[in-house]
């Protein structure tokens, strides 16, 4: 491969005429991770911006090929670490399609999944809003956001056992039923949320400094957004009402009432408003899921070949012990085939292309990371703008580098 020896970048800084090449990152506070941008600048304005990624490449896809199907969601959660359950849901739904058990997932499991995914969406948007505010000098927003996120992380910990990567969603259902008092804590969050969102809006939405920094900055036209395959809030901020939850309903989303907020301006402020509105819609979905979860029921599929039987039965039943042992020691086999499963993650369409050759390990797991494609649009957005506005653009695209680099 002769091309593999092509040097990565020109010299770090070079002059030519009035323009100059400057490396921004990979260590830079406002790049939200290890992002390097090679900038060609003339004075303060950007002529060309070329993001360099890969500093966080950990080979998750390769790792997943070498682990059981039942281990996949643990790794998937590490990609977009701000919205772990979204990744897990997408992977789990894909495997269920390959197994052909999508119709046999209990309703309660579906609603628990929806509840979890919408909680992580709010938590993820909280991190985005907090860091976006810090980029623009609004420090206090960060604390309000992280306080709200902390409540959600506590809920994740209660359900799955871990704050950041709960590993709660499993193939066939969820790991266990919701613990006692969980739904009451969700109620408390639902009650707290409107006031907190009002405070967040009060801090930024009408703030003249924030508006000056974001309105008409980083404009992404509809055509550009579609050409760069931008999805999620960034696409809806440009006026396209594409939401996977509505276009291809999964996990019972067709039973929920919610709107898909869109804006037509396509600037950083529009994306900001879309995300705030989305948080409101998410809390509406959470309230509906909470109502649906009043009725008890099974939380996982009744198939001991796929989902291990309850731990209590192991001491009483030989079959349960064998099933448990088989699933832990060699996982389950998945019939051969390929499938593309997509969900609406906090950043856009999150997709998994799964290939099984009939073994107990995936043959190939290809992720469609929304952040990768959203970030790529920076190449089209940045030229002609100021370096200071570049920071706003990165913040408004909300990339997560665990997912961009994988």
């Amino acid at each position, binding site marked *: *491969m002769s*091309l*593999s*020896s*092509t040097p*990565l970048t020109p010299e770090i800084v070079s002059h030519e005429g009035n323009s100059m090449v400057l490396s921004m990152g990979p260590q830079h506070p406002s790049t939200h991770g290890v992002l390097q941008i090679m900038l060609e600048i003339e004075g303060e304005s950007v002529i060309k911006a070329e993001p360099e*990624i*890969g500093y966080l*490449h950990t*080979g998750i*896809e*390769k*790792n997943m090929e*070498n682990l059981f199907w039942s281990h996949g969601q643990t790794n998937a959660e590490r990609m977009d670490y701000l919205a772990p359950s979204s990744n897990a849901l997408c992977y789990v739904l894909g495997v269920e399609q390959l*197994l*052909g058990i999508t119709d046999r997932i209990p309703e309660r499991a579906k609603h628990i999944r929806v509840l979890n995914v919408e909680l992580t969406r709010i938590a993820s948007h909280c991190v985005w809003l907090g860091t976006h505010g810090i980029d623009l000098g609004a420090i206090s927003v960060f604390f309000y956001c992280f306080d709200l996120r902390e409540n959600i992380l506590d809920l994740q910990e209660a359900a799955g056992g871990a704050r950041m990567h709960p590993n709660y969603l499993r193939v066939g259902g969820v790991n266990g039923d919701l613990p006692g008092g969980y739904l009451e804590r969700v109620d408390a969050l639902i009650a707290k949320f409107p006031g907190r969102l009002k405070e967040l809006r009060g801090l930024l939405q009408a703030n003249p400094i924030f508006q000056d920094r974001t309105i008409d900055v980083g404009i992404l036209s*509809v*055509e550009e957004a*579609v*050409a*760069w*395959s931008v*999805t999620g809030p960034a696409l809806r901020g440009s*006026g*396209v*009402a*594409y*939401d996977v939850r*509505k*276009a*291809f309903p999964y996990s019972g989303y067709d039973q929920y009432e919610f709107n898909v907020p869109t804006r*037509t301006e396509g600037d950083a402020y529009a994306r900001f408003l879309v995300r705030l509105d989305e948080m409101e819609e998410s809390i509406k979905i959470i309230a509906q899921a909470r109502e649906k979860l009043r009725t008890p029921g099974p939380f996982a599929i009744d198939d001991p*070949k*796929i989902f291990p039987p309850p731990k209590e039965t192991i001491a009483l039943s030989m079959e349960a012990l064998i099933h448990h042992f088989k699933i832990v020691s060699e996982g*389950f*086999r998945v*019939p*051969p*085939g*390929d*499938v*593309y*499963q*997509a969900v609406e993650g906090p950043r856009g*369409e999150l*997709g998994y*292309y799964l*290939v*099984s*050759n*009939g073994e107990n390990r995936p*043959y190939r797991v*290809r992720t*469609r990371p929304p952040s*990768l494609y959203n970030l*790529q649009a920076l*190449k*089209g957005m940045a030229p002609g703008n100021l370096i200071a506005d570049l920071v706003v653009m990165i913040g408004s695209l909300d990339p997560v580098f665990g997912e961009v*680099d*994988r």
Partner: protein
Amino acid sequence: MPSTQTPPIAGTAIDPPGVRRAIDDAVIEVVDPKALHARLEALRAEGYTMLLDLGAVDYLERVPRFEVVYHLLKMPVAAATLAQVGTPARLRVRCGLNEGEHLPTVSDLWKSADWAEREVFDLFGILFDGHPDLRRIQMPHDWEGHPLRKDYPLRGPARERSPRPAFGLKSNVQAGTPPTGRTLEALQEQIRTAQESADRPKAERKGFTGGEST
């Protein structure tokens, strides 16, 4: 209830996507590498405005060995309402190619193909003719090999060749077979040296150059 555990009749499949077409998550189309660009151009004109993803799979034992998969979405460009978006059609274009064969780039049709093709080149070594900037994207620029190929070892070629030191050491010493070349005596010697070094005052330690202490 039939068990989902039943292994496939022919054991494991060498060509998994060819075995089963029952999952209707998308329309599937198989295209020859030579006809690929023209077909995708036609599809784009037909209304497949978005190239959602582009990825590759390495079917090591199959001919053709590689497969590049394009995920397309048929959506009107300025669909401002949910009704206008509706349920857009999904299309999966699969293109098989052998080792050494090239594919035409589609970054002239969809800008988003730029990084996706770079990633396929980086991790699988598939070349795209006409790509404006085909270089590694995830791995370091001087990396050798293409990690997502099936014949690429999980821990990388360099570490695969070297013995595993950390876990093997203790049990190997007990079994008396040190494949790492380290005997029990050598290990004890190392521990003794480390302990002596720790017992000595700081300034006497080997490699300590002195200077102000903080």
